[in-house]
């Protein structure tokens, strides 16, 4: 996943701090911290994460949807990976990692399913019908396989490879647009669901994709653009995501690190 952290002026959290509201993330007053994240460990949950990671944000959204208290731990990935991270996820050494009673669960979509199954009395993100579950898993997997990778190529590359990435991104957005159709959420009858949680964290990245790809999501995929606005207002999402400007600046930092102009 992301192998660096923002510059110090952007660094919103100190290690082991409470998760602060994204709109005031440079202003770390405890009063801004949502109560859920400040109730340490009554559900015995800890999340090792990185502020701007869309994968970590999926888990934050799920935890918020379920009103589950947890301890948020920011991994300063630029400073190197902590012992705790390396021990909790020795295979991938990546965030997010959920620790439940000290036991690690890795991979964002696997964590979200785990939360559904370990906390069955909380609102679920996957529907109960096996067929609807299969479709939700398929589309979340599609988002997983396609969006971040293609988006990265969009801002990393130039010339023909970038043009290819742009074409792919348009294809991805149109495919998701068709899947969303006229539904309010990808979850359909279920309401805000697994695919919504999987894709919502990428909505602040749209502005950057638009800038690098020279297109407008609202033109290419108007239903997706409208969905992005809708989910952005949802409390669990609003408090887990950072602004498009912050994401754009973060990409700038990454580019500098990779020596890309």
């Amino acid at each position, binding site marked *: 996943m992301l192998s660096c952290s923002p510059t110090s002026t952007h660094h919103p959290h100190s290690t082991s701090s409470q998760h602060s509201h994204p709109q005031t993330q440079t202003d770390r007053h405890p009063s801004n911290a949502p109560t859920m994240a400040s109730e340490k460990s009554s559900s015995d949950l800890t999340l090792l994460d990185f502020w701007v990671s869309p994968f970590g944000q999926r888990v934050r959204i799920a935890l918020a949807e379920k009103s589950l208290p947890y301890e948020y731990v920011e991994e300063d990935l630029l400073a190197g990976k902590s012992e705790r991270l390396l021990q909790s996820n020795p295979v991938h050494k990546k965030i997010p990692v959920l620790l439940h009673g000290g036991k690690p*669960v890795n991979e964002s979509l696997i964590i979200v399913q785990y939360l559904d199954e370990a906390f069955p009395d909380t609102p679920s993100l996957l529907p109960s019908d096996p067929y609807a579950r299969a479709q939700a898993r398929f589309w979340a997997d599609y988002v997983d396989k396609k969006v971040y990778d293609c988006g990265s190529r969009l801002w990393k590359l130039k010339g023909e490879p970038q043009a290819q990435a742009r074409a792919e991104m348009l294809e991805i957005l149109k495919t998701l647009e068709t899947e969303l159709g006229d539904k309010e959420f990808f979850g359909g009858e279920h309401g805000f669901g697994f695919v919504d949680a999987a894709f919502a964290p990428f909505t602040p990245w749209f502005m950057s994709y638009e800038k690098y790809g020279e297109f407008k999501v609202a033109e290419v995929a108007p239903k997706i653009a409208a969905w992005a606005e809708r989910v952005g207002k949802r409390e669990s999402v609003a408090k887990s995501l950072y602004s498009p400007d912050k994401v754009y600046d973060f990409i700038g930092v990454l580019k500098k690190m990779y020596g890309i102009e």
Partner: protein
Amino acid sequence: MSEPVKLIGCFGSPVVHRAELALRLKGVPYELITEDLNNKSELLLKHNPVHQKVPVLLHGDRPAICESLVIVEYVDEAFDGPPLMPADPLARAAVRFWASFMDKECRESMWMALWTDGEEQAGAISAAKANLTLIEGQLPDGKMFFGGDTIGFLDIAVSGIAHWMEIFEEIAGVRLLTEEEHPTLYRWAREYTANQTVRQCLPDRGRLLAALAPSRDIFVSIAKTMSAHK
């Protein structure tokens, strides 16, 4: 629950095998429609427009279910029969994790180990063997399968190691899975391929070898592309 089940597949595919085995383990009768992937049918393109790949599951009139592991979980949940997934949420998360690991890191490292050469290959062989060790570590002590006494989700997910690996090894002239280095995994592979239900949907070794061997050059060029994209 007696709506017809159809599975669109093709000969020799390890991911189609996953779907078939899941159906058989749950005792679900199905019709197998065999595709020629060099000449994809209207049926396949219509039902899997997104990826245009097999396997594709058609259950009654429902729109298709695609992606082998999604199909396996669906079959487990939609039909009665012995559960393929463990019951405990942490155990379920673990098998999903290792299945994902198989499909990403493991498969990639094995591919590079088989089809690159020189120093790159040496490194890839090390990585592939290390990945096999990690997978081996998931076998419960004293049990025959990843699922315990019976075949489960993770057995199905890593079944490529049990049957296809050895055929690719023969074509490439490279050994990755040996009894000396991975005794428990090696034994699992033999148990898996000897299982009666597995044998019903496992492609014949000789036929598979004959089908895959001519594609050696293609495998090498795929490895080159993967290498370039790292």
